[in-house]
C-alpha cells in the first residue's frame, strides 16, 4: 500500500494582538491509499488547521505554517507555487465542509457548480460536464438528478445539499477527500444516511479520506485509524477498534468514558474536570496535565514525546508508557 499523504512535523502559528498561538505543534501523520483516518479533538485542538494546511488554505496573515512538510504522493505541497497548488485543490485533493449552505454558491445551479471543476481541471466541454454532474448526483443518491442539476441550493433540503457538496467534491475523482465535520450540521437520521454514503463511496472509489470531527460516534462509524489531538498536539494514534477498546491516553479514556453514557446505570456521567488551557497560557509540561487524573511530578515539567506502544499505536503520556514505582 502506498502512502498518499505524509505530514511531518507540521507547525502552524497564528499571530494575534495578544501574542503568538501555536495552533498545531509538530504534528506528524500519514494516510495510505484508500484509507480512512479520523482526526478527532475539541474546538481549538488544531484539527481543522491541519486540514486547511494540507490545502494551503491557512489565511496568512494571521496564520503561518512555520515548520514541517506535507508530502502528497511524494510532492511537498508546501513548496508548490500558487498555480501548482490550485491544480491540486479540487482535482487531487477535495474537501467537504460542515455547512453546505456556506460552501455552495446560492446564485449558481447545482449543475453549474459541479461542472465548474470538471471544465477547469479536466477541460471538459460544458455540456459533457453537466451530463457528468447528473451521473454524480445519481451516485450520491439524489433522486431525480436530471431535474436537481438545474436547481439552486435553496431548492434542496439540508441532507440533499450535503449530498450535492459531496458530488461536487468527487467530480474530478480525487485521490484524497478531506471531510471537515461532514455531519455536524445535519439531523441524526440524515447523519446516518451521509455516513453510510461516505463509507460506500469510499469503498467503491478507493479514495483515501481524512475525517475531521469532534464526534467519537462518527469516528466509530467510519474511521479505520484514529488520531486524537489535544491543544495543538497529537496525543494518541491507533487503529480505531483498538483505541476505542483500550484507550492509552487519559484524555481519550476520559472522552470515551463520558460519551459512553447509555451503558452506565449510574446517575452521574464520568467527567473530565477543568477546561482546555488557554492558547496564551499553556502549561509548561504536558498540555493535559492540569486536568489529568494520572499526572505526576514529571508531567508538570516535561511534555511527553510520542512513543510507540504497539503496531501502529502511539501515545504521548508518561503515565501510559512508564512503569512508575
Amino acid at each position: 500500500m502506498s502512502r498518499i499523504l505524509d505530514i511531518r512535523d507540521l507547525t502552524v502559528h497564528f499571530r494575534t494582538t495578544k501574542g503568538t498561538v501555536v495552533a498545531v505543534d509538530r504534528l506528524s501523520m500519514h494516510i495510505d491509499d484508500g484509507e480512512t483516518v479520523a482526526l478527532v479533538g475539541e474546538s481549538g485542538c488544531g484539527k481543522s488547521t491541519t486540514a486547511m494546511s494540507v490545502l494551503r488554505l491557512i489565511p496568512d496573515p494571521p496564520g503561518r505554517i512555520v515548520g514541517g512538510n506535507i508530502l502528497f504522493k511524494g510532492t511537498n505541497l508546501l513548496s508548490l507555487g500558487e498555480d501548482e497548488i490550485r491544480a491540486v485543490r479540487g482535482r487531487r485533493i477535495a474537501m467537504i465542509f460542515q455547512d453546505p449552505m456556506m460552501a455552495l454558491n446560492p446564485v449558481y445551479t447545482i449543475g453549474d457548480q459541479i461542472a465548474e471543476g470538471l471544465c477547469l481541471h479536466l477541460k471538459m466541454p460544458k455540456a459533457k460536464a453537466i451530463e457528468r454532474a447528473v451521473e454524480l448526483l445519481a451516485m450520491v443518491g439524489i433522486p431525480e438528478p436530471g431535474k436537481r442539476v438545474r436547481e439552486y441550493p435553496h431548492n434542496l433540503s439540508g441532507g440533499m445539499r450535503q449530498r450535492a457538496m459531496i458530488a461536487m467534491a468527487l467530480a474530478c475523482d480525487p485521490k484524497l477527500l478531506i471531510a471537515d465535520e461532514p455531519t455536524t450540521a445535519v439531523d441524526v437520521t440524515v447523519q446516518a444516511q451521509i455516513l453510510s454514503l461516505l463509507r460506500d463511496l469510499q469503498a467503491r472509489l478507493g479514495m483515501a479520506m481524512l475525517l475531521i470531527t469532534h464526534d467519537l460516534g462518527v469516528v466509530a462509524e467510519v474511521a479505520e485509524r484514529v488520531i486524537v489531538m489535544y491543544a495543538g498536539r497529537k496525543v494518541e494514534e491507533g487503529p480505531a477498534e483498538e483505541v476505542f477498546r483500550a484507550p492509552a491516553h487519559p484524555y481519550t479514556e476520559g472522552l470515551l468514558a463520558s460519551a459512553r453514557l447509555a451503558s452506565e446505570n449510574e446517575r452521574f456521567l464520568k467527567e473530565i474536570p477543568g477546561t482546555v488551557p488557554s492558547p496564551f497560557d499553556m502549561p509548561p509540561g504536558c498540555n493535559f496535565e492540569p486536568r489529568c487524573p494520572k499526572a505526576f511530578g514529571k508531567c508538570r515539567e516535561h511534555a511527553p514525546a510520542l512513543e510507540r506502544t504497539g503496531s501502529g499505536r502511539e501515545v504521548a503520556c508518561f503515565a501510559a508508557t512508564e512503569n512508575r514505582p
Partner: protein
Amino acid sequence: MTEPVVEIVDLVKHYPVRGSLFRKPEFVHAVDRVSFRLAKGETFAVVGESGCGKTTLAKCLLRLIDADSGAIRLNGEDLLKLDETDLRPKRRAIQIVFQDPYASLDPRQTIYQVIATPLRLHGIGNRKDRPQRVADLLKQVGIGPEYMDRHPHELSGGQRQRVAIARALAVEPEIVILDEPVSSLDMSIQAQVINLLIRLQDTFGISYLMISHNLPLVQHISDRIAVMYLGQFVEVADRDTLKARALHPYTQALFSAAPELDPARRARKKAVLAGDLPSPIDPPTGCRFHTRCPFSQERCVNEAPELRRVEGRDVACHFAGEVDLTALATDAKVSR
C-alpha cells in the same frame, strides 16, 4: 401521580406563511395538539429532529409566542388566559437555558449584571444583599466570585453555559426548559454540565423540560420521553419502557441512527431511514410519518393514528407492536 406542576392540553401553534391578497394563506403546523404533564422534580424530554416543533413548543410554554389554542396550566391556572400584567409574576416560574451560550448572554453586561437583572425585575431581595445572592448562585454552578465583574467574552463556552444556568435559577423557578443545553459545548465539557444539571435538580427539586435531538443522552437523564415528528408526539413513554423497546417506527429509526461508540459493531445491520423530513407547511395526510415509513399501508395514508396505550406507553401508530424497523434493517437504505 402527584399533581403536575404544569399541564399542557391540546396545544396548537400554526404559523401563517406565504399568504397574500390572491393566495390562500398556508400554515406551518409547528405544534399540533400536544398534551403532557410535568410533575415536581421530574425530567420530561421532547426528542425530535430540526423542524419537528420542539422549540416552538418551548416558546409557547414560556409565552414568548402565543399558542393558537389549548391550555397551559401552571399549578392549575391557565397561562393562556392571562393578560401581560397578570402573566408577568408567573413568568418567574418557568425559565429557560438556551443552546448557545454565546448568543444568550448580553455581551455588554458583566456576569454580575446577567444574574442580578432578573432578580431586580422580579423584585427579589434588595440592592444590599444582591451581590451575596449572585455570588451564591454562581457558586452553585461552579463559578468563582472573581468572575462577577467580567464579561461573557472572557469566559469559555462551558463557563458561559453555567452562567446561563445560574441566571435561570436566580428567580427560583419551578420549571427550567433546557433547549439542547449541551449540544454546542465541547465533548469534555458536556458531561460536566449534564452532571451539574442533575445535581441542581437534586438540590432544588426543579422540574426540567429537556428539548433535544440526542436520544441516547436524553435517555440517560430523563424520567419520561416524548418523541416528536412534524408537530405531533408519536410516542410517549417512561425511560425504561422506551429503553426496553421502542414501538413507533420513527423512534426505532432514531435509536438505530444514533452512532455507536464501538467500531467493531460498525458492520452490523442498521436501519437507515430514507428521505428527508417532509415540509411542515403541508404535512402528509393520515399518519405524518407514512412517507418515510417502510411499513406504511393504505390505512396510514388515509387515517391519522391517535395516541393510544400499547405495552405501557402512548404511541400513535396503527401497527404499533406489530412492526420493527430494526428487524428489516439492511445497510442499504430502508425504503418503500
